[in-house]
């Protein structure tokens, strides 16, 4: 029972330190901080601990230039398939018609002379 009570108090203080507590729970912790030395010390310890963790985990070297990284990422993207170009049939059709007409005229000329 007492354990659960301590657990709830600790959990509330932890959330309060992260500014994640709202409403009645936040009011309760704020009141404790006014009247209880121990609560103030606990909050102080929590904040020191957070500072230590944040400083220890933070990158010790600068992140590479974001623009250069973006270019490198873009270069790695799979290229979109080139659009299939629709074939331009016009010259082929014109040439075929031309050939047919020439062949027809030649055939008609040969036929008129009785050679075919």
């Amino acid at each position, binding site marked *: 029972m007492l354990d659960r009570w301590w657990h709830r108090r600790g959990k509330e203080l932890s959330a309060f330190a992260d500014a994640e507590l709202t409403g009645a729970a936040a009011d309760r912790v704020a009141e404790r901080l006014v009247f209880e030395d121990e609560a103030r010390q606990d909050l102080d310890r929590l904040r020191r601990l957070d500072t230590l*963790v944040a400083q220890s985990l933070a990158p010790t070297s600068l992140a590479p230039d974001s623009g250069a990284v973006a270019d490198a990422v873009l270069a790695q993207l799979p290229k979109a398939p080139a659009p299939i170009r629709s074939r331009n049939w016009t010259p082929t059709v014109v040439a075929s018609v031309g050939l047919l007409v020439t062949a027809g005229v030649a055939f008609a000329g040969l036929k008129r002379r009785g050679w075919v």
Partner: protein
Amino acid sequence: MTISRSQLRVHGNDSARREDSIRVEGILSGDDEAFRALVVEYHALAFSLAYRSLGDAQDAEEVVQDAFVKIHGALDGFRGDASLKTWILRIVWRLSLNRRRDRARSSWRRLGLHRSGDDADASLAGPAAESPEARLLSREASRLVRDVVDGLPSVLREVLILNSFEELGYEDIARVLDIPVGTVSSRIYTARRKLAARLPKLGT
């Protein structure tokens, strides 16, 4: 008529979501510049997250580049349930965990030969060096804290790492890890207790 803070937050979220989906649509329609802008905007955060998980700048950068390539391929699956930032961080986080797992298996790491010179020599002094905590935090102390964090059970370590970002609240952490907000709060508290018990000499 007054608007409550929660109504404002909902409105803010809605407009952010709308911006996210417009952005995603642009990228999906083939706008490379829009994707480039997205990488530039989130790269530092993604790198920091990967670094905090892996503790190695080179590994972190490889994971981040890989993550953005995957993000580009997976954007058509972005449904907008979470913000684009959270969605991106979730992918970076998962890839970091995979890398961490692969690395743990490598004999190089098991022999302790993995600590890069850059990381070991980098100075922790910076603007924060003025605070007593920063003065206290020698390179050795920093390594000790990192080792203690590394030694925590993974469910506690991950909330602690994500909570070390000021820009991530409990709700964001819950979305990245896909767990309830109450669980995030409990785990952070437990992680802090364990950490404080293991670091009694560092002023905690």
